[in-house]
């Protein structure tokens, strides 16, 4: 590794300086991969807690139709609605890919369009989540109602917080691009945001499958 680039590792992209690392992977990209590995354990723990307490609630409401103490209760989950919002998040991964492709070929306009689209889809997802939470709250589900309320809100809430952070990063990149601070040489910034965004998306697919779709 050449000495001159040492200090620029935190922000300078690889391509510009021909920087070499021992693994060939940019420092920041390696950091992001390790961070996402760590995040897997984070969401894994939350999902595990949810699954451990699945069907253990002593009082309604339940996620799906259930019978507690001989009384039948209707489930809260609205699968079609959540499927749509999951689809929205899924599409945002596509627009994210398009944003990265745009910056890599130097298409600033495309970059802005797709960054904004990704952020907007993220916001749409969050709006859907806010709507869902409000609905559930109206049906009597709070954080303290039962084990379902506790594990559900905390799991999906932390996911929502991740989406929010992702949206903030995307909007920051969008503003940087407007100010002309996002040259193709800095495409790594977009790539890193993309990695995080895809992870949040994949995490949602896991949550959607395990929590919403599979009702043991």
């Amino acid at each position, binding site marked *: 590794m050449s*000495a*001159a680039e040492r200090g620029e590792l935190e*922000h300078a992209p690889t391509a510009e300086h021909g920087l070499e690392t021992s693994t060939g992977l940019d*420092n920041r990209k390696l950091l992001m991969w390790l961070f996402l590995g760590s995040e897997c354990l984070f969401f894994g723990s939350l999902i595990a*807690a949810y699954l*451990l307490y699945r069907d*253990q609630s002593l009082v309604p409401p339940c996620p799906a139709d259930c019978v507690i103490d001989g009384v039948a209760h209707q489930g809260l989950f609205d699968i079609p609605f959540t499927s749509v919002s999951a689809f929205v998040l899924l599409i945002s991964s596509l627009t994210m890919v398009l944003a990265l492709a745009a910056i890599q070929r130097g298409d600033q306009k495309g970059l802005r369009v797709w960054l904004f689209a990704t952020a907007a889809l993220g916001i749409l997802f969050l709006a859907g989540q806010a709507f869902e939470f409000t609905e559930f709250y109206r049906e009597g589900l709070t954080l*303290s109602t039962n084990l379902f309320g*506790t594990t559900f809100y*905390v799991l999906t809430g932390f996911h929502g917080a991740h989406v929010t952070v992702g949206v903030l990063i995307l909007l920051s990149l969008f503003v940087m691009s407007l100010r002309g601070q996002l040259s193709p040489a800095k495409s790594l910034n977009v790539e890193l945001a993309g990695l995080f965004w895809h992870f949040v998306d994949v995490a949602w697919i896991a949550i959607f499958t395990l929590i919403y779709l599979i009702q043991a």
Partner: protein
Amino acid sequence: MASEAAGRRPITVSETLRQLRTQGGDYGGVWSWIVTVDHKRIGILYGVTAFVFFLFGGLEAMVLRLQLSNPDGIGVNADQFNRLFTMHGTTMIFLVVMPLSAAFFNLLIPLMIGARDVAFPRLNAFSYWVFLAGGIFMNVSFFTGGNIFAGELGAPDAGWFGYAPLSLRGDTGIDYWALGLLILGVSSMAGGFNFAVTILNMRAPGMALLRMPLFVWMTLATAFLIIFAMPIITVALFQLLFDRLFDANFFNVAAGGNPLLWQHMFWLFGHPEVYILILPAMGIVSEVLPAFSRKPLFGYPFVVFSGIAIAFMSWSVWAHHMYTTGLGTVANSAFGMSTLLIAVPTGVKIFNWLGTLWGGSIRFKTPLYFSIGFISMFVIGGLTGIMHSIVPADYQQQDTYFVVAHFHQVLFGGAIFGLFAGIYYWFPKFTGRLLHEGWGKAHFWLMFIGFNITFQPMMILGLLGMPRRISSYPDGFGWNLWNMVATLGAFTIALSILLFIINVIISLRSKERVGPDPWDGRTLEWSLPSPVPPYNFAQIPTVKARDDFWHQKYVEDQAGRPVPVVADGAQGAPANEHDGSEEDHEVHIHMPSPSIFPLIAALGLPIIAAGLIYDYALVAVGAAVLMVGIYAWALEPPTE
């Protein structure tokens, strides 16, 4: 501010040297320490701060030992006792051993792999400031109980592993504890990412993975353990806080919650944590023994892979903390087996250390003493660990002083002895002065003897049926004598620490300077001047072998006997190869600029935490501080 200006543009080696000479090595006063991103300075900050916390934790231990010295105690009530032992454990683990290890990562890793700094210097500064903030936040809890001078202590009181549902009941001390651990977790994770990336990515040309010094390997294993274990405790602490602050039901039995969930989560983190604490010390010992035996580490690849094996296996043994919770015969058998098997790679390490000493020419310097202390005490810790894996026997030992003795054998007899070995070994590298040998040996002997008369009696106490965490005990149980002995031992240890402090003061004031390589070292850091210049390597070295620096000094003849390389006038003494002698080379070194923003971002975290306890408005303030810090940091150019 001078140094900040210096960092804004490329500086040259000669310029830096001139600056160093004119300022007598002190480049910029207190402010330069606050904004520093230099891994060596951050390492020193880590070390000094952790040592101060070590004194806190030690003081707490002294009060505990005095109270237990006799059945009547010294008037510490149960409430105070519970808070003190909780803080003693929490402090020693999260504010002493982990950050002391982090100090060594900081000081040594870039030097050992031939790099100018860590991969993310400002993230590194952030780690330190978050650690400091978390440590202070945690200790502030002492003042929340009322009038502290009237003995009304705050602080958490549910033990360092905060078992639910007891930890749901305590006062705000528990909130401080949980939030403090979350803050400290951010620091550890940032450090873990940084050092994993640094080691994987920043190695000098030729520094292949299997040429890395053992300490680097153990740091890498530790970093991965931190990266994967910390999120689990993070989730557990969030669950606890949601239960406490927002009436969630994770551990609420009345709503069907299971208190054992906490134990599983805590120990799934907690056992890897044990190895997070001990692997760095093992790495240090693996560096010290070869240097003073004047032989390479015996069975290098086996020591490396046994370390990795330990790191992997540490994920499969967590429930051995829970044998008595009624997990059932299958689970207890499985975890008993895995716990027995983790002894195998641990034994491999010990035998290889013996192999390193074997056939050497052992020089009895203080770092070696502490390393020998490490091995001899860690063996007892390991053997008592095997005894715990005999599950039915553990039904008797669980939660007794036998366990207290066991983990102090590992964490004090192991980690602390190892860390002191490191302090004595590398002190000259960063201060240019040796620690005094006479005081050092007195320190060792007093600590070694004190350690044995503190913790071996605790084994007897445990077998005589004394449970841990009791603030008093009745007369007539046969515990009086051994408790008194243990207390005397604790004070012997305290005295030994005083000797260490005196030694540091004397040595720092001494006029005697030491060269770059006082121990005839084997690894790259000894090729650099002492103290190491800010840029570390004037020229990044090219590594040709394991123990590369040693191979610059010696060649092996055909019988495997080392022969010194004849000093060649053209090359200069090998020890000087990487020092500043190339003053005239106008090598441009971009040093990372100092930055205040890591500190500002770090400040946001305790404000958010305090807000969660007292007033949610503060949460917004803290979040704003954090955001300002992060954005300013992101937008600030790292160099130039």
